[in-house]
């Protein structure tokens, strides 16, 4: 059995307030070397703070309350600030949803890429600038020798996200966390960016943790997908299976609520299926299964007992009393 690149085990993140709540609990997953893993869920379900925890960046009122995070078999949840700093950027990198604000407006983009080489690999500035130009070429920015001197406001959103990818992948990290990397972009630019990310990561052997609320996007790009609801992973399956045979009622609801091409021609005009109700607030998670107030299959056991994880074939799992 090989050691997975990233192993998150029983992660628990506490949100301090008048009362301490668990924003994320019992979250466990593994990402293999070079594997693309998707984490899907709606706003506030805890997917972004899970990513922050993996980067060691939880800040008050959030804090790591339990669980283990292991990178390459080495536990990093208790690393010191300087150890974290060495990990970030060089072994774990991240790109975000807002390419507009994620670049320093007063620094030419080439310099911002080059800074990574200087910071993490001790390169000289002149060498780093040459490598930055090469990095820009790799993310297919046209005429990189001129673009390298451009400031972020001179680039379009898609170009900026390419620059972000170049910065994130500059030091050849083992893991790239992509937190909604295409949400702020046009659909056509979206697919280019996703293809580019997938291609570069495949070439460099970088694993991807893709965080999104877009099930379709994640399923296209990732080998395995985990669905989060209200701070817990409710289902995890290979990407194909999650569409073909969703086991958790929430995942079924998500898949059903996606519009399908050609559906209307086949079955006539129909109202798109939806999941009734709203996400419970973190202060008032229901007892038992957290999805039970919105679930069509809910019974008494769902209202009283939190469901345990049931293993599924191909490393999958589901957290439901009535799965299947």
């Amino acid at each position, binding site marked *: 059995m090989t050691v997975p690149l990233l192993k998150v085990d029983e992660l628990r993140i506490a949100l301090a307030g008048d009362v301490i709540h668990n924003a994320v609990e019992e979250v466990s997953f593994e990402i293999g070397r070079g594997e693309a893993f998707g984490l899907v869920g709606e706003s506030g379900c805890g997917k972004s703070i899970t990513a922050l925890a993996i*980067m060691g*960046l939880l800040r008050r009122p959030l804090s790591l309350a339990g669980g283990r995070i292991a990178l390459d078999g080495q536990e990093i949840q208790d690393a010191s600030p300087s150890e974290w*700093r*060495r*990990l*970030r*950027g*060089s072994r774990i*990198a*991240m790109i*975000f949803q*807002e390419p*507009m*604000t*994620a*670049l*320093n*407006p*007063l*620094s030419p983009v080439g310099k911002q890429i080059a*800074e*990574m080489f200087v*910071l*993490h690999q001790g390169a000289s500035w002149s060498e780093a600038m040459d490598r930055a130009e090469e990095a820009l070429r790799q993310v297919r920015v046209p005429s990189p020798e001129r673009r390298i001197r451009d*400031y972020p*406001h*001179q680039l379009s959103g898609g170009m900026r996200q390419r620059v*972000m990818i170049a*910065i*994130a992948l500059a030091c050849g990290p083992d893991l790239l966390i992509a937190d909604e990397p295409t949400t702020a972009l046009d659909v056509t630019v979206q697919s280019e960016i996703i293809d580019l990310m997938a291609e570069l990561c495949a070439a460099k052997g970088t694993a991807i943790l893709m965080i999104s609320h877009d099930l379709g996007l994640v399923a296209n790009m990732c080998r395995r997908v985990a669905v989060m609801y209200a701070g817990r992973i409710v289902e995890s399956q290979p990407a194909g299976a999650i569409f073909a045979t969703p086991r958790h009622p929430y995942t079924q609801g998500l898949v059903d609520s996606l519009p399908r091409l050609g559906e209307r021609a086949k079955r006539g005009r129909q109202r798109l299926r939806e999941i009734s109700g709203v996400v419970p607030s973190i202060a008032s998670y229901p007892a038992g299964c957290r999805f039970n107030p919105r679930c069509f299959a809910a019974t008494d056991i769902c209202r009283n007992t939190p469901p345990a994880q049931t293993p599924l074939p191909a490393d999958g799992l589901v957290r439901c009393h009535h799965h299947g």
Partner: protein
Amino acid sequence: MSQSTPASVTADIAAKRRFRLKGGLSLWVGGALVGIALAVAITAPLIAITDPVMSANLMNAEIPPCWEFPFGTDAQGRDIYSRIVYGSRISLTVGVVSQIVNSLIGVSLGLSAGYWGGLWDDFVSGLTNLMLAIPSLIFALAIMAILGPGLVSLVIALGLTNWSYSCRLARAQVLSLKSQGYVQAARILGYGDLRIMFTQLLPNMLGPLIVIATLGMGGAILSEAALSFLGLGIRPPFPSWGSMLSEARDQINTVPWLSVFPGLAIFFTVLGLNLLGDGLRDILDPQTTTRR
């Protein structure tokens, strides 16, 4: 009503754009005034007519402005013009150096307080409020009383008493910049605290800080004049604009040129610094300067 032709309209827009991109009138007027003051200070030995201290000659006492003495002479027969020329060295030195000291203190305190927050922030904010509550001139007076008159103690006194504005500004800027994506991104990419401060935060808050420092220079020159006027600044016979005013105050009715010309020198230098500060505020926005 005359209708402008399209050609003249585009020429008009082009002219306006050129004008705006270069920072506007205040930058140029202010820059010119400050430039003249600097040039005078640097070339003082070349353009002064006589020695500002040693040329006392009672035969020439209190001559009104004339060809030989363009700004007249004082009671000791010294050329006012030459004394103003040399006085610019002191006024500008005090203005520039004390503002550099102020900015260094204010920015390092404000930047670190805003960045790290917590107890250090409380302490710095308290100290800033304390400094703001004490009139800075009174504080400077106290320091001057301890250190004794002279150029170095002037710079120290004014440098230690006016940093609260740049400190507050720096802290406020850090607080708003800290939540910017690129600052967070820098942390995620493994930047250290100091590197974040110097590469991400400081360049992005430099514009307002430079403006404040430029405006503060005018204030420092006025404070120097006030302290010298009160006899705590530059000691006679060495000329500073403030001490010249101080010496001339008894004779403002009978020998007005003694006070008018140093007063005008202060006026135009402070005006120039204020205009320059305003003009810099307009151009220190990268979005208008880096477009090619």
